[in-house]
């Protein structure tokens, strides 16, 4: 069709003109989905000339011969400019891949690909032994709670667990360990990650209501290619410190109409040694993750995506706890249908259905010294299923409306059996078969009010229903709540507003206010005598807990310099009904200091700042650094909140050349003395560690990575580490990556 119109245009303009003109033609697609973008504006910079894409995302226009800068823009995507040379009587191709505009409330970190965004993360991921948690932990304001060398739990500005909303490809999933030893992030291998989307506090509520923040892990997706091709890689690595062996592979088959990707990672680590050379017992583990994705173009505007994820970990040591994990297992499946340009107003639509199952088995069968001289098992499982529908609506260039309706159902059960020698087994249900469903409606409106002034408003309503269904678990909780039916219905309303303004050309300032809510977690509402090794208390859930509420105000500033960028965020959170464990009994026995109950802890506050800097000194040297600091307060107890990170700094200097890069990075924290006394937290000394790593392209398709972690062999642990277990001492690592490039493709 467009070739006909092209001919007509040429014919109409006549030979004379045609002699001095050429055609620019191309297609505009969504970078993330590969789907064509309808109605995108393609404008020639400095000329009042332009075109728009048709239903298949294609455009064409006739230009005079010469060089032009062409800008492509469409609602909801970042405008992109490219240069093109037009020569007489020829057709030049210029395709655009536009990236969806991430709303300024979220930090989107691309793990692979684009080197300027998440630069440091890009390098970290390329070292063989990085984990999903390490990657997340590199972001300002994000810390990790560690209970060993495995499955660290992300914490955004000191808020974790139920205060955060973690999703995998938008899918809800819930850890099955009552002691939070399996945050969802631990079920995703870093090599399978494509991007990490982080929203701090209630600034991002698309994936669910939250007070602390949201984290969406996007896994590698199958891709299309213009002609059939297959790509693969295989990578082997070794870390001397923990004797960790790692093997990863991926295989991608791409065609114009379909994509298939299969990837996996296997890791096995022994106990590591700290800086003194002391072996930290029970820090080893074994893990295998597999990831299969299939994408098919159903028609030029729609595609079907099927994804399957499995992850199995065995014999995971937890040095901070008296028990280990026999196995931790995830099975996840999702299917989604995406379509674009249904009508001129509905830009995009997606429908997804998913389900997942997590099984977790804690035991102490590997321990010689037993907790209270008896073996114990703590199995737990969760089952989750859900669905959501996303709609992206736009009327004109300057405003866009995003809608999401979502639903999920989840069930959590855990129990504990102890086997005293010569006596009867002791059993209790610790998560009483809690069934919970959530129905939510989200909407977000973005608009460009004036040049350089954007507003962004979002709102979310949630309805939650929760009930403890296990009979024995009900009987247990009725000891403390005799009249309670252990069922609750919660209505939650969250909202936020952002105002972004370019104060001067290079200084963009964003003022955000947000109000967030969250319901108590299964443990907080229905948990039964869950042991917390940080303070040594048993925790009892409280089905009458109110909904925790936060108010947040934040001022973000981004300054672009000629060779880099700088950002400074200031924030303040005020909480109402902050959920907190209060001592109910100081009757200490064999292992516990007594028991605590989750209560409405009243009002609390967190305030802090984050600063980051990216500076390119020359073509070869790049510096990236950051700092974060925050203070907390729990008003009623005149105390600090627990698990609040101290002043943290990190910085890296990278030397890049065509065939290799070398990076010196440092990471440290000041002493934390603002520790929560009520929670029995210790203060933590300061530390600074240095890592060195590099990568060398030996041959096309063959890559070597080398590095040393904790170069100066510091003896340290971080404030958020449970049990004050020391982190690994100096250790070197190496990995070799082979891909299809070696075959000269």
């Amino acid at each position, binding site marked *: 069709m467009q070739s006909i119109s092209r001919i007509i245009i040429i014919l109409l303009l006549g030979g004379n003109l045609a002699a001095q003109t050429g055609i620019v033609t191309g297609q505009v697609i969504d970078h993330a989905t590969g789907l064509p973008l309808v109605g995108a504006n393609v404008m020639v910079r400095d000329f009042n000339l332009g075109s728009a894409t048709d239903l298949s995302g294609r455009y064409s226009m006739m230009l005079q011969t010469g060089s032009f800068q062409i800008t492509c823009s469409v609602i909801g995507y970042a405008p992109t400019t490219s240069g093109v040379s037009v020569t007489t009587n020829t057709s030049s191709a210029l395709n655009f891949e536009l990236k969806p505009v991430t709303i300024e409330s979220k930090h989107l970190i691309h793990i692979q690909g684009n080197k300027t965004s998440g630069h440091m993360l890009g390098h970290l991921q390329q070292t063989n032994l990085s984990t999903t948690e390490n990657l997340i932990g590199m972001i300002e304001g994000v810390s990790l709670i560690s209970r060993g060398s495995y499955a660290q739990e992300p914490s955004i500005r000191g808020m974790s667990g139920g205060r955060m909303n973690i999703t995998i490809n938008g899918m809800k999933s819930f850890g099955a360990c009552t002691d939070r030893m399996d945050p969802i992030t631990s079920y995703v291998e870093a090599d399978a990650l494509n991007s990490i989307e982080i929203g701090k506090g209630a600034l991002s509520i698309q994936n669910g209501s939250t007070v602390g923040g949201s984290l969406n892990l996007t896994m590698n997706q199958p891709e299309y290619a213009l002609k059939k091709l297959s790509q693969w890689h295989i990578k082997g690595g070794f870390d001397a410190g923990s004797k960790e062996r790692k093997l990863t592979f991926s295989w991608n088959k791409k065609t114009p109409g379909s994509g298939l990707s299969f990837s996996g990672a296997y890791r096995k680590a022994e106990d590591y040694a700290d800086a003194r050379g002391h072996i930290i017992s029970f820090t080893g583990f074994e893990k295998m993750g597999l990831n299969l994705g299939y994408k098919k173009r159903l028609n030029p505007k729609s595609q079907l995506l099927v994804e399957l994820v499995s992850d199995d970990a065995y014999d995971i040591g937890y040095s901070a706890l008296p028990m280990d994990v026999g196995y931790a297992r995830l099975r996840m499946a999702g299917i989604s249908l995406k379509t674009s340009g249904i009508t001129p107003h509905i830009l995009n639509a997606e429908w997804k259905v998913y389900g997942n199952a997590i099984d977790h088995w804690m035991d102490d069968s590997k321990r010689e010294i037993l907790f*209270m001289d*008896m073996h114990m098992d703590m199995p737990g499982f969760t089952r989750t299923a859900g669905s959501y529908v996303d709609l992206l609506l736009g009327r004109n260039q300057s405003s866009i409306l995003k809608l999401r309706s979502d639903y999920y159902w989840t069930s959590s059960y855990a129990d*504990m059996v*102890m086997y*005293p020698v010569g*006596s*009867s*087994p*002791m*059993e*209790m*249900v610790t998560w009483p078969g809690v069934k919970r469903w959530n129905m939510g409606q989200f909407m977000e409106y973005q608009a460009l009010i004036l040049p350089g002034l954007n507003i962004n408003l979002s709102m979310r309503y949630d309805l939650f229903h929760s009930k403890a269904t296990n009979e*024995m678990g*009900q*009987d*247990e909780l*009725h*000891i*403390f709540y*005799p009249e309670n039916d252990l069922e609750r219905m919660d209505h939650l309303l969250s909202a936020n507003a952002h105002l972004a303004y370019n104060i001067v050309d290079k200084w963009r300032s964003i003022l955000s206010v947000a109000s967030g809510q969250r319901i108590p977690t299964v443990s907080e509402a229905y948990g039964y*005598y869950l042991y917390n090794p940080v303070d040594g208390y048993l925790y009892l859930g409280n089905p009458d807990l109110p909904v925790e509420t936060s108010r947040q105000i934040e001022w973000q500033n981004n300054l672009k310099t000629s060779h880099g960028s700088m950002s400074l965020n200031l924030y303040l959170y005020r909480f109402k009904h902050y959920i907190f464990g209060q001592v109910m*009994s100081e*009757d200490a*026995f*064999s292992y*516990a200091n007594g028991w605590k109950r989750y209560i409405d802890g009243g009002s609390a506050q967190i305030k802090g700042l984050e600063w980051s800097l990216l500076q390119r000194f020359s073509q070869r040297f790049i510096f990236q650094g950051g700092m974060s600091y925050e203070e907390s307060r729990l008003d009623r107890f005149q105390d600090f909140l627990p698990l609040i990170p101290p002043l943290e700094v990190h910085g890296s200097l990278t030397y890049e050349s065509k065939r290799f890069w070398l990076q010196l990075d440092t990471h440290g924290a000041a002493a934390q003395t603002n520790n929560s006394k009520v929670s029995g937290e210790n203060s933590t000394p300061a530390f600074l560690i240095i890592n060195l790593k590099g990568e060398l392209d030996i041959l096309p398709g063959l890559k070597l990575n080398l590095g040393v972690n904790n170069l100066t062999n510091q003896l340290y642990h971080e404030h958020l580490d449970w049990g004050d277990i020391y982190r690994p001492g100096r250790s070197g690592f190496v990995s070799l990556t082979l891909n299809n490039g070696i075959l000269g493709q």
Partner: protein
Amino acid sequence: MKLHLLLFALMGLLILGCEDSNNDSDPTEELILIGSATENGLSIDLYVDQILKVGLNKLYFDLTDLTSEDQVTEAQITQKPIMHMETMNHSCPVAGPGSAPNSDGLFESEVVFIMASGMMGTWDDTVFVENQETSTSHQVVFEDLTVAETNMKKNLVFNDADSNQVIYIVTLNGLEAPKVGVNDLILTVHKKQTMMSFPEVADLSISIDPQMPDMGHGSEGNVNPVYSENGKYEGKVAFSMTGYWTIDFSFSQGSEELGTIQYAVNF
């Protein structure tokens, strides 16, 4: 045709409904008949709700006039359970039945067996009935009652102010099938006055203390037993998990601490 079917269905429902409402439940259906005796035109059936055991038992007497075949509800009943041992006989604490039948016309009584039947001896129960409807007296003996052993009977032994040894017989009831959570319990306390006389003790203060020795902890949510009637003290015990539990009951009378007895529960 459809109408017929509908009518048929309606009739069926009606019949079923009528059957349901006509079906008077037999008051003894839930009970176990352990003895029947007839004497002078009166039939006396002895029912229990559970098999007899050491501890608190409920016994039900059903009287029937053999001439009219009607249930007798106006009567005065007393009973005397006796254990016959090789060298001696003894009785046990008893309450009722008395003269007031329950709503089903059954005369209820409580017997605290303090010993199991078997090699050591046998239990019988001598029952005296004053039939007020016919003004006749009857006496029957239910022989060879099987009483199962439990470990729920203990003696609380102490010396009174005059340094005479006093024995209170204590039984713990209600924990035959313990569950995790809150369990209702009944303690019975009777004084062993003679081998034949066991009056109730009604003026005790009792405190409860369950413990899990393998763990070294107790539990929350217990209620100290409080006197109700017939030597019974009703309270609650909470078990936070399954396993081996001990329960200590401490007894005091006025300001006098009488002592502590311990039970074990394993489930």
